């Protein structure tokens, strides 16, 4: 009648639940302990007469130290357990499928690299780790799937990422967990976990639209980026072939891995991250690209890096 536990449908769910029940056990133990001691003392030592006197109270250092050290040890155990669970699951495994999420006031816009786009719905294959790269077009939202025990704020102007590996097929709640305005409580949706072949059927079933990389390439050519970013590196700008994922040396001498955040910053504020050996002559594209278009350009740059790039320009 009263639901107790949310569905556990991701690889980290049972780890988090074990720790949650351990903490519930500790809380109930100490609360019951304190309440029972209070009731016992209340009954045993209730005041018999007005001029009753209590014996001398002498503080015992042993008792004080014991109830300082024991809670500290318990806290250390909880901290190590929780942090280990958190850090180990903070980084997505290398071979996870990548899906892009754009939160805007009161809807989730989800884009699969293969092309399909969804509003407030996310279709994922079971058993395969999924990495979500998320950004917001206006205020701070929060992508929260209780069944997978994962949650991450979605910030404007920055990419945040979240990953999970579904272990059960089914339909699970998707909530926005950071207050974002009038219809914050309607910014909800569903996550459909499907068997791998259902997933590929669903992917193919969608209207035959270009993949994000192809749309990115169209933008790349439309804005004549290739004029400077010549593939073989003879242009005035660095060649983008194979650049994604590798550390690059900036003019300021700082080494930074070329990831989504760096590409977005290069598009928005190029002069703040010039690569060493190149003049900071790239114009800013701030305000010209929508968030979707930036993600498509990033998908295109990524596709330049992987070997399946066919017609190397």
């Amino acid at each position, binding site marked *: 009648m009263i*639901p107790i536990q949310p569905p556990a449908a991701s690889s*980290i769910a049972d780890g988090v639940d074990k720790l949650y029940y351990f903490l519930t056990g500790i809380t109930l133990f100490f609360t019951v302990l304190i309440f029972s001691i209070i009731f016992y003392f209340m009954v045993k*030592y209730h005041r018999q007469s007005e001029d009753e*006197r209590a014996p001398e109270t002498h503080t015992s250092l042993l008792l004080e130290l014991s109830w300082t050290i024991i*809670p500290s040890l318990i806290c250390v155990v909880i901290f190590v357990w929780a942090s280990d669970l958190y850090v180990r699951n903070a980084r997505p495994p290398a071979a996870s499928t990548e899906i892009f999420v754009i939160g805007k006031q009161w809807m989730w816009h989800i884009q699969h690299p293969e092309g399909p786009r969804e509003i407030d719905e996310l279709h994922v294959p079971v058993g395969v780790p999924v990495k979500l790269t998320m950004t917001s077009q206006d205020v701070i939202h929060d992508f*929260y799937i209780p069944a997978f025990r994962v949650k991450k704020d979605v*910030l404007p102007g920055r990419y945040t990422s979240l990953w999970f590996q579904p272990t059960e097929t089914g339909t699970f709640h998707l909530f926005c967990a950071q207050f974002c305005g009038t219809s914050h409580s309607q910014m909800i949706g569903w996550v459909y976990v499907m068997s791998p072949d259902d997933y590929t059927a669903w992917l193919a079933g969608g209207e035959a639209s270009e993949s994000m990389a192809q749309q990115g390439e169209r933008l790349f050519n439309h804005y004549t980026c290739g004029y400077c970013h010549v593939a073989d590196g003879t242009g005035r700008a660095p060649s983008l072939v194979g650049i994604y994922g590798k550390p690059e040396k900036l003019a300021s001498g700082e080494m930074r891995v070329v990831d989504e955040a760096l590409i977005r910053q290069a598009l928005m504020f190029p002069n703040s991250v010039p690569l060493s050996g190149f003049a900071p002559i790239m114009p800013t594209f701030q305000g010209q690209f929508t968030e979707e278009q930036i993600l498509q350009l990033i998908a295109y740059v990524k596709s330049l890096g992987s070997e399946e790039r066919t017609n190397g320009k």
Partner: protein
Amino acid sequence: MSTALADIHEVPAESRVNYLNAAYGIKSWLLTVDHKRIGLLYLASITLMFFVGGTAAVLMRMNLIEPQGALLEPETYNKMFSTHGIIMVFFFLVPSIPATLGNFLIPIMIGARDVAFPKLNLMSWYLFITGSTFALYAVLTGGVDTGWTFYTPYSSTYAHTNVIAAALGVFIAGFSSILTGLNFVVTIHKMRAPGMTWFRLPLFIWAMYATSVIFVLGTPVIAVTLLLLGVERLLHVGIFDPAIGGDPLLFQHLFWFYSHPAVYIMILPGMGVISELITAFTRKKIFGYTFVAFSSMGIAVISFVVWGHHMFVTGQSVYAGLVFSVLSFLVAIPSAIKVFNWTATLYRGSISYQAPMLYALGFMGLFTMGGLTGLFLASLAVDVHLNGTYFIVAHFHYIMVGGAVMAYLGGIHYWWPKITGRLYPDLWARFAALVIFVGFNLTFFPQFMLGYLGMPRRYAIYPAEFQVLNVMSSAGASILGVGYLIPLVYLIWSVRYGPPAGPNPWGAKGLEWETPSPPPTENFEVPPVVTEDAYNYPTREVARG
């Protein structure tokens, strides 16, 4: 024991001049510099704000009876939870014990005639009233829907409600806390009676000193943050704006740098009141005086380095998250020490169960529960699941309502005879305490389960499977609402019709019980000289049982 007590009994209470009948008329109240009258002025204004915030809470709970919202549009629900948050946090909980009981009792408990800067004290009250007027204006003319956290960029760019009026109200009320904190720090340092060394101070004073330290060191940061927010909202450009390279998390860093110590501002005075109540109703010295005193100071200091646990899921760096997680566990230890020391004080004491003691015992149980659920939120892996859900709502209500408000009511009942010179009907008071205890648990325990199930906070409508727990919570809220009205009735009744209370109705130790109630304007007929330790109850040599 000073001799002031001896000659009180010959003079009948009524005819003696005390701070209440020393002067009459509106001017005598609105221009008073007597810390006791200012305490009563705060008591009146805080009770008004409590019922404004409480009405917003009742409307919210009634709306949540049905998944699609039984009463309010989502827009109005957002304004209700923002009103409930802002009014309760900044205009009731932060000033509740420090401004009412603190103002009234600190000078008396340390044997002084008044606070260090009486005119500044009155100015603090006027700042509080101005701040409250701005906040009430914001609430009544269209409301504000950013929540009490005012997160940017929603509050600075996208919200279209009275954000500036609300932020200005909190900004002005912030200065009232700063000046009150300053007043108490100087008073406790410089104006203690001869013989009142630091380790003879009652523990309420230690807790109030720790609270004043947080007032002084924390509140200015939120003042400048809200100022920056207001300017950014007016000029449409500012340092929190992501479009010009601003970092939305910077606002959260600056906001929580004050707001986490602020939750300790709300609970530390409550702990001070509980230390007084436990010793008074067991007629015994507190167990581990120095440990309890220093744990108050420990909480005040460590509370400033833990704010990151509010931002574990906001894209804060993992390394910073680990550091904040360790420190958040560390801050739980002093609270545990206090609870264990209070429990040990009950051992072989002579315990009586008047209303203040019931509030104290209720506090100990509920605060333990509230504190331990904090461990869930300090541990990184579990906080990822529970952040932003009703688990958080339940956690801080267990500490704020189960802890701070219970202690506030316990303190009001305990010192009511001293404030008004009248006793209240104790049976009604015990009944009200039980109703509040039951109503509280029925309201907030289901919310722990809702949180684990994943129901997010601040939702006007919610999926149907959460309805049963929400209906239980709403039922509990109505009981709690009634429970809070009962004390209002019999306390006001007692001012006119309550039997007169002598200087020491509870037979407790402390300088405030050695002066007539209600005390004269200059607190003591004969300036007291302190010769013994705090809570120096007569003891029995032979061990019993």
